[in-house]
């Protein structure tokens, strides 16, 4: 079991977080978060930026969109301005919430890859394009995309000898467009058969 990462109360990060981990935010994060595990914005925690995780639970403040691969849960103590996108979305009575809810149904694209070109995940249109009339609601939320390249560059800089080579990031593994197509070479097979007979 991996140890859960924590931005503790009293600590502020202006920047972004990404990785294959669970994360609890009890302090403040001004920037996007993308983790493959569970993300919990604790009561007292504040995030300004889009967040994406397997499950997103909000007990504190979120100004930005929440993408949950499995679920997004907004608890009673939460204050949230942004869009919620997940196959399962729960909003507790008492939560302060302004924004749209998108429930993925079967057949819709899975939230599996972040597309920096669209500044969004999985090829779903960016929220601002999707609902231009309500763009004002999201005006203050940053639209900073995750920068995949610098993160990879940082990993490469770390010495390899002491740690196993990092597994391909989720987006690389999940993105079928990155895999080269391999076609069987028919001509070569034929040639071999001729030579044998």
């Amino acid at each position, binding site marked *: 079991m991996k140890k*859960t990462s924590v931005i503790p109360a009293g600590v502020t990060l202006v920047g972004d977080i990404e990785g294959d981990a669970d994360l609890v935010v009890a*302090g403040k994060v001004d920037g996007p978060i993308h983790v493959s595990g569970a993300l919990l914005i604790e009561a007292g925690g504040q995030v300004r930026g889009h967040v994406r995780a397997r499950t997103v639970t909000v007990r504190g403040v979120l100004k930005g969109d929440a993408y949950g691969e499995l679920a997004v849960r907004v608890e009673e103590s939460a204050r949230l301005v942004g869009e919620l996108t997940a196959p399962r979305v729960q909003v507790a009575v008492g939560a302060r919430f302004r924004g749209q809810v998108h429930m993925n149904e079967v057949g819709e694209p899975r939230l599996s890859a972040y597309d920096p070109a669209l500044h969004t995940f999985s090829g779903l249109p960016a929220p601002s394009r999707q609902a231009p009339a309500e763009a004002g609601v999201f005006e203050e939320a940053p639209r900073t995309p995750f920068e995949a390249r610098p993160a990879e560059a940082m990993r490469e800089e770390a010495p390899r000898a002491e740690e196993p080579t990092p597994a391909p990031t989720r987006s690389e593994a999940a993105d079928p467009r990155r895999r080269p197509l391999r076609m069987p070479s028919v001509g070569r097979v034929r040639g071999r058969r001729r030579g044998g007979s």
Partner: protein
Amino acid sequence: MTDANIPGYLGAELVVRGRVSGEGDLTIEGSFEGELNLQGDLRVGGRGRVRAPVIARRVAVEGRLEGDVEAAEVIVREGGRLVGDVRAPRVGLEDGGALLGTVEMDVELPEFE
């Protein structure tokens, strides 16, 4: 349930960029690039890779830290590597640790006769 006293921790799987400030303690086992300004303690764990100027109360380096450090106490532990200048009244370099940089400390020397 997390409470206010839970220590800060950035796991080895995380890549964090930006500016961190605040009063809590923080342990970094992942990759961090940016700026660290803590009133609490910073520990760069054995798997931690930090590239940032650091201001903190106490700093312990078990992994790699690249950047100038200002603290009340700096300790580079075995296997740790600190590349940068250090300004601290207490500096420790353990056997097997590496410190590449200048240590700045106010040193009072006795008058030479």
